[in-house]
Structure formats: C-alpha cells, structure tokens
C-alpha cells in the first residue's frame, strides 16, 4: 500500500480538480472559461436546497428511485458462497444508472441558461438518458456515437431518434467511444456559448469527475440504507464494472471510508489482456487525454491505442481519474473480465434469475462468479446491475448464432 495514505478517501478532489496526481483541467483555452463557469454553477446548485429538492422529486417520480436491492437467491445457491445482492439500476427509467447523472447535469444546464445539450455515448445508454431528459425539458439534443457502436447498438439509436435527438455517427479513429468524445469536444469548442456538454462518465476536465460522481452516489447511499434494512449491517464487498467508471464510483464512494468493505472494479479485458482489450488500469499507465490525467492505453510515443470490448459501454482506452487514484492508493481492487466471460455471465444470469443484464454489468457478474464461491455464506456481496440487456439482445443473438454454424 502507498505510504501516503489519506485520512479519508472521500475528500477529493482538491480545488484544482486533482485526486493525487490524477484529474486536472487539460482543455483548450476556448473551453476553460466555460469550465470555470460550470464549476461555479455546480457549487451554487449543490448548496441550494431547492435544487436538491427538485432533483429528489424527479429521481422519485420520473426515474423511479430508489432502485431495489434484490437478493439474488438462485445465483447465490448456484455459486455456493457469498450472499449476492443486486443493486437494480437497470430498473431505472431509460434502463441504466446513466439517468441519475444526466438528470443532475440537465438541471445544472437549465440553471446556466443553456438550451443545447451534447453528449457522447458508447453503448447508447448515456445517449438515451440524455435524449430522454432533453425531451422532458424541451432542449435540443445532439449525441455523438462511434459508427461501430451505431451498428452494434441499433435499438438505442432508434430510441434516441424517436426521442428527438440527432445522432451523429463518428467516423474518426476506431469509431467507438473515444472518438465520439473527441467529436463532442470539437462540437463544444465550436458552440461553446450555446451548448452544455453532458459527459456520461466520471472523466473529463474538473469538475466533471466530481460532479458525475456526486450525482451517481445516490446508488451507494441507497445501498447502505437498504442493506441496513435487509441485513442490519454494511455489505462486505462491492463489485461493479468499469468503462469510464460512473456506476462503480456511484456505488463505491459512500463506502470508501469503511475499511471492512472490500471493493472490486471490473474492467473489460476484451480478447484477453495480452491482446485487444479495454482495461486501462491492468494494461495502461498514467497519461493525459480528454481533459484529465488518468490511466490510459497507449504506445511508447504516447499515442492513444484503440480499445476493444464486446461491450460498447466499456470500449474506452481510459478510466475516470478518481479510479486511477483509488487504484494507486490500493483502496479498490481492479480486476478484469474477458468478452467470453461476460457472455457466459450474461447467459447464466438470464437463465438463473430471469434478468438479462447489459453486457457492461455482465463483466461484473463474471467476476462475482469467481469471487463469491471463495467467500463464506454470511459474506454480503453487492453487485451493481447498472443496465439492462435488452439493447444487447440483437448483438448477442448474432454472436451465438455464428457459433452454432
């Protein structure tokens, strides 16, 4: 463990947006004044009880919170170890945890008087959540999505368009999430006066990693209360998948200062860590991209490498800066699951619990399948079921059909 361990893991970032050496504000000058405005607007909103009250109203009646904490009895029996609970974020309106953050950011955008919202999306879950709230509040919405992801996540593209969003297929680079984020940033630089950039994960320049984490922390806050009610104590471990890492940070953050709680983040190992993958912590090192310093996949010259994951939502060569810091301090253990392991977990969960998970949390389930059997029956393990698998059914059907031939 790092000798410079902080007294608390929950006080970051500092006023310049740093978590240890990670984070920061590495953006073009054109954006810098706006980022400072956003920081101020968010601080004002956070301190305003009316903002919190309004948000809580929408979280309850529009999103459908609190999401249940469900005891996965058959999975628990099947694995024969830890008692497994699912935090059911897939039951939220729009089908994933993404809506928690989008609601918060759209409300901040409204306070700032912004009428045009842009977003990047990988799996399309963040895009769908953004398109949904833009429809609800009558805002213009443009979603940047890698052309590869437009292909493999068609149901979400159709949904976004029905909600009135313009979906722009991004043709640069590997045509996945990283490239969508580049083009969203280019749009923002161009339309900086009118536009609010609704970032979908705990990454980007300060204050985004902090702000998105705060909006997602409702996941962990509810989990604490619900576990108290169900079992009368804290959980013993938490497991969540990580692309940028917003569902994981939302679950983890309220527990970071509870040393009895083991915390596991699961990156996407794609075809395997020695081949194409998206596991920035397992296979990367610190660098600077998209406004922050964090673990990145890159070559010796500092050129960013294309990630690969079966899951469009995890297909990103970076990770939120706070995760990089939690890795270096040793507070969170970062594991990885391959495409194959995620597919197997998807099938198992669908058959055992009648819950088809999105391919993203299927990575977390894959590691639960390894971790749970090694733990005693009174060990309470919470896994964040961050999204539902409906969007992945066409892609998975194709893959499984290909195998039968």
């Amino acid at each position, binding site marked *: 463990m790092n000798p410079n361990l902080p007294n608390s893991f929950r006080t970051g970032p500092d006023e*310049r947006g740093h978590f240890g050496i990670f984070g*920061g*504000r*590495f*953006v*073009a*000058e*054109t*954006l*810098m*004044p*706006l980022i400072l405005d956003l920081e101020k607007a968010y601080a004002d909103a956070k301190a305003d009880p009316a903002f919190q009250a309004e948000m809580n109203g929408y979280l309850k009646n529009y999103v459908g919170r609190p999401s249940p904490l469900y005891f996965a009895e058959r999975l628990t029996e099947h694995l024969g170890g830890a008692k497994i609970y699912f935090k059911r974020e897939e039951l939220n309106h729009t089908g994933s945890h993404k809506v928690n953050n989008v609601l918060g950011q759209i409300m901040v955008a409204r306070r700032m008087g912004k009428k045009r919202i842009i977003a990047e999306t990988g799996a399309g879950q963040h895009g769908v959540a953004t398109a949904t709230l833009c429809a609800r509040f009558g805002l213009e919405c443009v979603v940047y999505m890698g052309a590869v992801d437009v292909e493999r996540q068609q149901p979400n593209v159709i949904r976004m368009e029905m909600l009135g969003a313009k979906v722009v297929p991004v043709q*640069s*680079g590997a045509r996945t999430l*990283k490239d969508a984020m*580049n083009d969203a*940033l*280019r749009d923002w*630089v*161009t*339309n*900086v*006066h009118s536009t609010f950039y609704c970032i979908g994960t705990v990454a980007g320049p300060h204050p985004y990693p902090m702000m998105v984490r705060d909006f997602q922390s409702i996941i962990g806050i509810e989990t604490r209360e619900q576990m108290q009610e169900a079992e009368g104590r804290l959980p013993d471990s938490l497991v969540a998948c990580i692309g940028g890492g917003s569902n994981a940070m939302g679950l983890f953050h309220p527990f970071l200062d509870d040393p009895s709680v083991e915390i596991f983040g699961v990156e996407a190992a794609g075809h395997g860590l020695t081949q194409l993958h998206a596991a920035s912590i397992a296979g990367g090192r610190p*660098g*600077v*991209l*998209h*406004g922050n*310093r964090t673990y*990145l996949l*890159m070559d*010796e*010259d*500092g*050129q*960013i490498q294309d990630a690969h994951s079966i899951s469009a939502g995890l297909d990103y060569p970076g990770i939120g800066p706070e995760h990089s810091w939690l890795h270096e301090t040793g507070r969170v253990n970062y594991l990885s699951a391959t495409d194959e392991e995620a597919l197997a977990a998807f099938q198992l969960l669908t058959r055992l619990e009648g819950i088809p998970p999105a391919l993203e949390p299927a990575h977390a389930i894959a590691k639960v399948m390894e971790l749970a059997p090694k733990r005693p029956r009174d060990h309470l393990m919470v896994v964040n079921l961050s999204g539902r698998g409906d969007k992945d059914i066409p892609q998975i059907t194709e893959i499984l059909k290909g195998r039968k031939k």
Partner: protein
Amino acid sequence: MTTRIDARFADLAKQGRSAFVTFLMAGDPDPKTSLDIIKALPKAGADIIEIGMPFTDPMADGPSIQAAGLRALKAGMTLKKTLEMVRGFRKDDNATPLVLMGYYNPIYIYGVDKFLADAKSAGVDGLIIVDLPPEEDTELCIPAMKAGLNFIRLATPTTDDKRLPAVLANTSGFVYYVSITGITGSASADSNAVGEAVARIKRHTKLPVCVGFGIRTPDAARAIAENANGAVVGTALVDALRASLDSEGRATPKTVGAVADLVTALAQGVRGAKQAAE
C-alpha cells in the same frame, strides 16, 4: 533571454511588416518529404514555422489536420523523430524560429525534463500546447520557461478581460489569438472583429499578437496582417499538401512545390498588408 522568435519580431518591426506563420504536421506525408517541405518554407516566405507534433486524438483540430496527423503516424512519425527533423532543419537555417505545436500527452510520456532539454538542443524556440491552459502551468509552461523555450499561449474569443491577465502571465514569444470559437479549418475569421480582439489583447501585453484559425487565402492573410503582428495559416497548407498526394496518400514529385507555391502566394498577401498593428 532573447530567442529566435524575439529576434524575428524585432527584425520585422524594423521592416514595418507582420509575420507570416506557417503550420504543417511533422512527418506528413512521410518524414523525408516533411523535412524537405519545412526546409523550403523560409525561402518561400515563411517568417516563423510551426510544426505539428502528431497525436491520435487532436481535440481542437478539424478533419484536415486530424488526417495529417494520422498520415504522419502511419508513416512512423514519433516525437523523437520530430525533434530529429528539427535538427535536420537547423543544419542549414539558424535564424528561422521553429515552434512545436500539439497536445500534451506525447510530451508527458517522453518525459517533460528530457523533452525540454532535447527540444532546446535540437533548435526548437517555442511550444504551443493546446490542452495546457494556465491552470496547468506547473506541468510544462514553467519548466519550459526555465529551459529557455518560449511558451506561446492561445487566447480565444472566450478569453475575456478578466481572464486575459492569467492567460498572458507566463506567455512569451508571442500570443496566438484563435480568431474563432471552433476547431482548425472550420469557419473564417472576420478581420474587423479580429482587429478589435487584437487591440483588446494589446491593452494587456507588449508581446506581438499573431492570429490563426480560418485564414485560407492571400487576401485573407493580408487583411489579418493589417490587424495583427502575424497571420498563421495551417489547414490551407495541409490541404494543398494532401491534394498533391497519390491515391495511396504518398508524396509525389509535386508535393514540396505545391506547399511552397501556396506559401509564396500567402506570404505576398502578408507582405502586401499596410502598416501592421503597433
């Protein structure tokens, strides 16, 4: 400390004209042709040369310069080779200022101290790093100043009077005014608005102010040069280079000349400007 950039602006002030600043990507379309192009620029009329350091994810650049960076990377360009190119240029030219422009990550990975030492010894005069605002000055700006390199800051239409002093505080060499809110090669700059913006910046600094983004033609270059201490052209040159390539994206016998001819025409535009801004 006087750098080649300071000396060049002093000289241009004596001549009573503005600078013509060119931008091309190092290694585009291949390292050898790229060096030949850079070597041809001073004679064609470039007063200051900006060399792009290729990066996979150039967030402030439009399609032309994105593609130039990818051509260079495909041809094997690295930051190390960019510095070798600078050394190659300096063999024959010890006067023309060279400025490296790009994004921070390749420098961070190269190692800041090693990069600054190697860049200085290769003959680099200044740096423009798009994703290092004053809020991150401790990363590279302050060390670069200590190493004797100019750190040239971008000011933009969103940089208001309140913020300008912070942006200018650690800037040296010149100020690069980005004339539009947008990416390279997108919109065209309005020379009147540019004139007002340059005057605004000059109320805060004695440094020369060069203007870039959206300048494509000799007429536009002249109009900008009348309102600023220098006009920067990048995308138009990169486009001329690209148009000279074969269908596989390789250099042809026309490539060096195609860029040099456009530089000559643009330089005449700049030299045709009436007395530049003081």
